[in-house]
């Protein structure tokens, strides 16, 4: 277990909807950190105004030493907090910034994908295709620079391995119906370097039990 002087035995509650959604990366981070955590699914919209900003996800960290709960919202802020706390963010600031850049690009694609799903027209669809191509290209480049090890950092799991998996799970679970071949086209464009990462995430001993269900619903590979 992570040895963190301030909260060696923090326990977490994660509040969200009972879907893959935008928090799969948070789930994977909590699993990989071996933290003590549970997920709750508040009644919605009845419990909307019980949430700190009327939105979810919400992460509540209870420390073992009686300090007040630490409450955090905004999904990628939660990810970065957990990734740094449990050693999944590179310690080199430039490498960390690169992972954050890739993650923000994933989020740009996720948001645009959702806009197309909700009816945005041809210009948005073209931009979406452009961004997806760039996303695959940039992730593959970083993997090659790392020696094509099947991980983005050295030879072990780091933040962006899990985030990339969470990103694909999200967009495959909610594809825009106006692009009928959306999921198949993206799967075909997944490079061998990225495929290795997906395989490593799916077979990771701390993640594989959780991911068996996701892979059945939204298989990332053909």
């Amino acid at each position: 277990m992570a040895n963190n002087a301030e909260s060696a035995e923090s326990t977490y509650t994660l509040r969200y909807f009972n879907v893959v959604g935008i928090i799969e990366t948070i789930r994977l981070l909590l699993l990989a950190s071996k933290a003590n955590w549970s997920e709750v699914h508040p009644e919605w919209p009845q419990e909307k105004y019980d949430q700190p900003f009327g939105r979810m996800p919400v992460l509540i960290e209870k420390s073992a030493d009686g300090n007040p709960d630490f409450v955090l919202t905004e999904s990628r802020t939660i990810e970065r907090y957990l990734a740094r706390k449990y050693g999944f963010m590179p310690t080199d600031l430039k490498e960390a910034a690169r992972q954050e850049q890739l993650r923000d690009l994933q989020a740009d694609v996720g948001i645009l994908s959702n806009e197309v799903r909700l009816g945005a027209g041809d210009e948005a669809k073209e931009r979406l295709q452009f961004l997806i191509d760039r996303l695959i290209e940039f992730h593959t480049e970083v993997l090659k620079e790392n020696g094509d090890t099947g991980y983005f950092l050295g030879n072990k799991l780091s933040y962006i391995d899990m985030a990339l998996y969470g990103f694909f799970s999200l967009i495959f679970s909610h594809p825009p119906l106006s692009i009928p071949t959306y999921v198949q086209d993206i799967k075909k464009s997944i490079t061998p370097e990225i495929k290795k990462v997906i395989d490593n995430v799916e077979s990771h001993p701390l993640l594989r039990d959780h991911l068996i269900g996701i892979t059945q619903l939204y298989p990332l590979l053909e």
Partner: protein
Amino acid sequence: MSATAKSSYILRHLKNTGLGETAILMLNASKSSWTEENPKWPQEKPNQPFGRLPVLIEKSSDGSPDFALTESGAIDRYLARSLGFFPSDPKKTAHQEQLHDRIADIIPLIVQEIQGVNTNSKEKINELIAKLKEALPESLKTNGSSITPGGSGLTYMDFFIYAFFRHFVTFCELKAPEYAAQFKTMLTPEVTRVISNVYAYSNLQSHVADDKNVFSFLA
């Protein structure tokens, strides 16, 4: 010792988006060696390392390759971290990032409404603004800077709050005045103190001098 002590930077951005303004404040506040570029767009798109703006290019002094970074959030956080503008407590840092993200969530909704791309968000925008207004004073109190006379002690949050009111709220005054009016009700003593502290910081003097025309309370 930080490698960036001897780095110099290029920030390439489109001025009208306001996306580079927090980075510019931090680069000036840290007295970093840096230059600003405003490329012709979209003509210069193929010449950018990632085909997008803003982009930060960090040139080291020891001959190692340039470091290029895109995504305005990633750029801002990288500069905040490497220039020493994050609180030392990771929980406070996370709460500063949370406040930034809450503001950042509202901006594209308003921009889309102005562009006529998405006109159904008014209720959501008003709700987010109301919640931001509620959350702001507490955020500043618990995660704010300890400003010392002379201005050191400014953090990431001070800069993005300043940039938000200086640029985006000013933009809203022209294009979305009903939202500008709501944002200006957030100028409570806690918030104007943050803006005044940034304005008064000696390292920023030449950059912010004209801003007293924007913020009447600075006069």
